[in-house]
């Protein structure tokens, strides 16, 4: 029994009467190195542990957490969660899932990553910065170049079974390059994620950030008009992050999703398929079980433009009378599980990004959207967001554009998708979201 499963066992032992008790424990170690001008700017090393306790009594939920409790403190934590449950409304859908043995998912933990010396990781970060500033003549410095990694162990046990435990390790780089010409400065971002140092595509990230910064130099405001819009994978994934909220059964059941009444109906062009797959190793969100111990799997959400279903945890599934899709998620041991995507992605199409540009002819290419959290609502589906990118003329990238906004509704965008590229890429925001280049038939682009 590990230290974490021991903590969990103490909590389960403290259950009283017919209440259900769940313990979720994590232990993580992480490192982050930030460099600037060839020197370490900051190095952060961390070790944290925590325990979250969920008590369900008569359908009422109470929750308590503590950073790094001793085994002796666990019964008091269970009592605190129990006390909180007294004030909550009962709901028969509040129940813990039965914890069954889960098929392991090999490949999530590379012991060599944790064992690699800090010096090697620092050297990688220094190389990353150097690669970014030598990738393009207009890029002479970075705003930030960082390397990071983490190793996390998670254990879940409850009065309905367990313990389950798994361990994963990830590493990443992120780089923000600054391109300059005269008084003008433009920033470009890129990153890479992997499960081993050998497979971390840091050189591609460095080159990508430099290119994305440099090509925005000299931007002009566009005139306001309706035009085809090409979203690069990062911009398409940003939109997917808003859509992800609408695909959560929690939002659907609370009337907070425009997709709620549309199961079985066409919600997107027939080029669009959206899939969530928690066992897809290419995606950074892969894990053998979700944050309440249910095995992850593959869920088709939109197939050829038709809405097939939503993402569920145990509670939303109980309410809908189906099985959990393994999408219980928590930010940390501090929170009750909600519903989150694992690896949620646009199934890639067959066209290259170049072919999509050629087909669009005259269009706007968007490489970055800003203000999404304020300018887009997964409740109403309306959005109006700032964007940076380039004009497309004659099927090729042309002059850069700045201070532009694009506005529409999520459903209108999905229905107007006229091309899905083959270049699927995953981004580590909001779970892990994946998108290729996407061509949208027409949107309002505002500038002047």
């Amino acid at each position, binding site marked *: 029994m590990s230290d974490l499963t021991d903590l969990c066992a103490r909590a389960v032992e403290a259950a009283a009467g017919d209440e259900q008790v769940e313990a979720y424990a994590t232990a993580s170690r992480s490192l982050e190195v930030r460099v600037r001008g060839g020197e370490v700017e900051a190095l952060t090393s961390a070790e*944290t542990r925590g325990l979250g306790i969920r008590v369900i009594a008569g359908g009422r939920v109470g929750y*308590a957490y503590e950073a790094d409790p001793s085994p002796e403190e666990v019964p008091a934590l269970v009592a605190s969660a129990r006390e909180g449950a007294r004030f909550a409304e009962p709901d028969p859908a509040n129940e813990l899932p039965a914890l069954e043995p889960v098929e392991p998912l090999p490949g999530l933990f590379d012991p060599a990553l944790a064992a690699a010396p800090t010096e090697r990781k620092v050297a990688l970060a220094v190389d990353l910065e150097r690669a970014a500033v030598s990738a393009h003549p207009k890029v002479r410095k970075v705003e930030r170049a960082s390397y990071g990694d983490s190793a996390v162990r998670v254990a879940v046990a409850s009065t309905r079974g367990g313990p389950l435990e798994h361990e994963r390790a990830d590493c990443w780089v992120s780089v923000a390059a600054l391109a300059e010409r005269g008084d003008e400065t433009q920033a470009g971002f890129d990153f890479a994620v992997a499960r081993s140092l050998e497979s971390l595509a840091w050189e591609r990230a460095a080159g990508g950030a430099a290119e994305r910064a440099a090509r925005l130099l000299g931007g002009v405001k566009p005139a306001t008009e309706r035009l085809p819009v090409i979203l690069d994978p990062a911009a398409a994934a940003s939109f997917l992050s808003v859509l992800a909220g609408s695909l959560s059964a929690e939002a659907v059941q609370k009337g907070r999703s425009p997709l709620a009444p549309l199961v079985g109906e066409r919600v997107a062009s027939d080029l669009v398929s959206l899939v969530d797959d928690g066992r897809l190793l290419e995606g950074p969100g892969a894990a053998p079980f979700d944050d309440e111990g249910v095995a992850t799997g593959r869920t088709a959400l939109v197939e050829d433009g038709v809405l097939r279903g939503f993402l569920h945890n145990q509670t939303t599934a109980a309410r809908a009378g189906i099985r959990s899709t393994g999408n219980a998620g928590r930010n940390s041991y501090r929170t009750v599980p909600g519903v989150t995507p694992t690896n949620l992605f646009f199934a890639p199409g067959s066209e290259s990004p170049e072919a999509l540009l050629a087909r669009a002819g005259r269009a706007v290419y968007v490489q970055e959207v*800003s203000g999404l959290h304020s300018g887009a609502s997964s409740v109403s589906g309306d959005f*109006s967001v700032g964007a940076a990118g380039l004009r497309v003329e004659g099927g090729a990238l042309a002059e850069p554009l700045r201070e532009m906004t694009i506005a529409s509704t999520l459903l209108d965008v999905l229905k107007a998708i006229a091309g899905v590229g083959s270049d699927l890429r995953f981004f580590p925001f909001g779970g892990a979201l994946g998108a290729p280049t996407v061509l949208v038939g027409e949107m309002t682009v*505002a500038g002047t």
Partner: protein
Amino acid sequence: MIDPELVQEVLREALATGGRFAEVFAEVRASTTIRLDNGRIEEVVAGGDRGAGIRVLYGDAQAYAFTNRLDATSLREAARTAAGAVRRGGAGAGAVADLRAAPPVRHEVERPAAEIPREWKVAWLGEAEEAARALDPSVRQVLIAYTDSLQRVLIASSDGRLAREERPRIRLVAQVVAVRDGVIQTGFEGPAGATGAELFDRRPPAETGRLAARVAVAMLDGRPSPAGEMPVVLGPGGGGVLFHEACGHGLEADHIQKDASVFKGRQGERLASPLVTGVDDGSVPEAWGTNAFDDEGMPTQRTVLFDEGRLVGQLYDRLRAEHDGVPSTGNGRRQSYAHLPVPRMTNSYILAGSTRPEDVVASTPRGLYARTLGGGQVNPANGDFVFGVAEGYLIEDGRITAPVRGANLIGNGPAILAAIDAVADDFDTRDGVCGKEGQGVPVSNGSPTLRIARMTVGGTDV
């Protein structure tokens, strides 16, 4: 929390390999969170957090190690980890001065949240929800979230500084969804303070529910926002959000020192309209962004950023102040022990002018009235920003007329500040959580009603 002698020892350990400065930030935090969703108390969460971060400076570089164990063994180990990142053995090694304790600060709180029974807290959520629902039958969904916390911090550094503070915080947030004829709109209100339950005397829970519902209901009748350039009047508080996003971030010294700020090298210049005086003030009593000390143990203060349009200040933490050879302005903040401090705003305000708000609108023939802004985002490298408009109306013939939705404001920080041509006398604040480098810290933003002579509005109505 931690014995001062142990702190001294840990600091010595942290400097053992040649660092020039070391610091311990330790905290213990207790919090309560309650969520009410559609008439049901869904969760009551009791939380306990604790941890310590140890920072070692060598040259301009920082090494940081944190742990959530506060015992002597774990603290010493963290100190050794941070020290181990320093590879320049010996040269310029700092010594640890005797710790001089500033008097511990406990904020004057009439009714500490920790002493209030959970039954009462649950009742506040009910009052907010009831008032939201009573406003209009179109109110379909109401989410109320309550949170209080007491954070006890100890901050000690090798220059002898030792600060201790108990920081109370309390907040009630209402999110409302209104639905009519297939149209869905949302509203938000979330007053907060560094205080106790007396916050709700000034901002009663029922009023919070009602204000959030008002936005959602008003926007149901919204027509698509016009797009293009036009005058924009920002409602009280809304200009504070703009000031925070479009200017405040660019005045954080880390951005300036990295050449990633549009304000670099422009101190002393008249960049804003002479109507604009803007400050950051971490010492406003009971305000949401207030602390007695920043998270590096420096007393907080009022820093003037724009004095009648002239750029006269910027926001420093310790490291960036050292770099410029000036004192820190007490803006070194962090989300928790798990984070390195960076320069951050606290309470950032555009101060009130003397015009009446109704006169500002009356002198605007045609434009957009943005009563409430949503969040926003800015690229500090060039000052470009975008804000969502949560509640917007047309201004026609000097009167506020039809509601519009889907609008956002796009512009450039310095350009917009220069274009402010009216500042009213109706100062108000908005409380929020500001994100930077993955860290959220409580901030309040404040302003009176303001007019920007021309700016780009993004919308769907071409």
